[in-house]
């Protein structure tokens, strides 16, 4: 296992470097002058030159790239133009809020998906299966940008049960977490159902049944653990949708995380901050993916040997 972990960690470096390079390329190579965009078309040439110097944009491109990568290795992402503070500390301040939201969304997703997927997979074609899968296809289709406002109208404005926006106690977390977790729940439920249907036809399940276990006992003791491996893989793949879903959910609910920071930075044309936030999201995703691979290797020993 230690060797497997080390190998996965080593594989992280080139991907992280690739992500940093592509982010740099988007901000620095895509046509359009960020400084002119920031200061406006009518800005004095001296101001433009001054800003360009302040941001290090007057250096040759390869030197800018060197400064960027070296800074990244030291955890220095430059200074935000609109906040006049280091980008890294701005992101660090808001990162816990984003993680909290993503974790809550994941929890809601799992909490809804497991009962649905198990009920549907236990008796495929039955009424419960049809109902659960009907919910799932609708859940996958309803966009965050509509589910959020819909929940706000019903639970905050009409029933007055929960706060409308902002971050605070648990009550503030409920609606954003449901907004974020519903699509995930639907996707996991579908996968869990599919996986259970396959597991139920396997030889070890037949053995478990023939030694006298009831269907439920066999499922709980032997089936579920095996049915979970594809679900873990799926969770890793869905981590990306969860992160950008969190970004959009933050904007809907005025949740003070990295997503809202990014959208604000885009509006203010604060390019160092845009670059930093994009990088923060992408690197988080890369790390989460590695963590899922490790979890997968723990559940399924065969993976480690490959």
């Amino acid at each position, binding site marked *: 296992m230690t060797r497997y972990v080390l190998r996965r960690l080593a594989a992280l470096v080139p991907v992280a470097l690739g992500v940093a390079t592509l982010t740099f390329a988007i901000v620095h190579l895509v046509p359009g002058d960020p400084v002119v965009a920031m200061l406006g078309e009518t800005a004095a040439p001296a101001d433009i030159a001054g800003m360009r110097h302040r941001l290090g944009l007057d250096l040759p491109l390869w030197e800018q790239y060197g400064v960027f990568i070296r800074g990244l290795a030291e955890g220095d992402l430059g200074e935000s133009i609109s906040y006049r503070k280091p980008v890294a500390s701005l992101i660090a301040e808001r990162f816990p809020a984003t993680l909290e939201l993503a974790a809550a969304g994941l929890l809601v997703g799992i909490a809804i998906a497991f009962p649905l997927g198990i009920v549907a997979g236990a008796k495929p074609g039955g009424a419960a299966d049809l109902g659960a899968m009907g919910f799932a296809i609708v859940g996958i*289709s309803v966009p965050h940008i509509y589910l959020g406002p819909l929940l706000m109208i019903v639970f905050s404005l009409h029933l007055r049960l929960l706060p409308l926006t902002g971050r605070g106690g648990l009550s503030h977390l409920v609606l954003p977490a449901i907004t974020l977790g519903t699509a995930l729940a639907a996707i996991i439920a579908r996968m869990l159902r599919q996986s259970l249907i396959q597991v139920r036809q396997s030889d070890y399940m037949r053995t478990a049944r023939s030694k006298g276990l009831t269907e439920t006992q066999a499922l709980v003791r032997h089936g579920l653990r095996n049915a979970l491996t594809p679900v873990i893989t799926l969770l890793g793949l869905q981590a990306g949708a969860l992160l950008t879903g969190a970004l959009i959910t933050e904007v809907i609910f005025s949740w003070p995380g990295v997503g809202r920071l990014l959208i604000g930075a885009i509006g203010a044309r604060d390019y160092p901050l845009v670059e930093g936030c994009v990088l923060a999201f992408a690197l988080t995703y890369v790390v989460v993916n590695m963590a899922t691979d490790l979890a997968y290797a723990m559940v399924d020993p065969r993976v480690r040997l490959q």
Partner: protein
Amino acid sequence: MKAIARNPSLALGGLIVAILALAAITGPMSVRADPLAIDLARSLAGPSRAHPLGCDALGRDVLARIVWGARLSLGLSTGVVLLSMAVGTAVGATAALAGGRVDNLVMRAVDVVLAFPGILLAIALAAILGPGLIDLAIALCAMGWTGYARLVRGEVLTLREREYVHAADALGARPARLIFRHLLPGLAGPVAVQATFGVGGIIGAEAALSFLGLGALPPTPSWGNMLDAGRAFLLVAPHLTTAPGIAIGASILGFNLLGDGLAQRFGRQ
């Protein structure tokens, strides 16, 4: 009737997509109201006979804006998917057929693009390119081609080992004939399934980007920017979020069902 019972997803999905396409094509003829005509006297008016879905804050007819939004949403997402599919198929097939170093390089590039979660790459590109429909389409294509590249590469690698391809090769068929006559037809099913889900995905992504102010700019009616504008009036005029919200949800649902149905038809899940 039997065909519908055997594959209800295909039937229902096809129906929703057909209605959507019909609305997008004939909408401007059947809904007479001008989606851009401002009438402040009707600001935030609820549904009525003259305006079946009510009016927005500037008194513009919501139904007309939904129908014009359908044109934008469906047109843009179909275009983006076709372009992503063409680029992805070309790249994936080249990687699989060239093999070795080319394959390795291409797949590493795909890995890096895929390391950007969800619609983040499109958000970053749209942020730098600035808002606007062409820039939005470019940003969505930059994100979308990788899925097709991976799928096509995998399919070509398996297809190329099939007996009929070996037979054609042994009979002296030229590479172009092999590709166009024997490999591409075998790809059509899986790629069509992925592209169907893809249109739904791009409809959602376009709406999200327009919602964030990175896509279609007002006054151009797009479901995403209508939803964003409606958020200020959740209590007094909930129809302003409900109408575009249901339009987006129903469209994505239609393409998801159609994709499920096609997958079932082509015998894959």
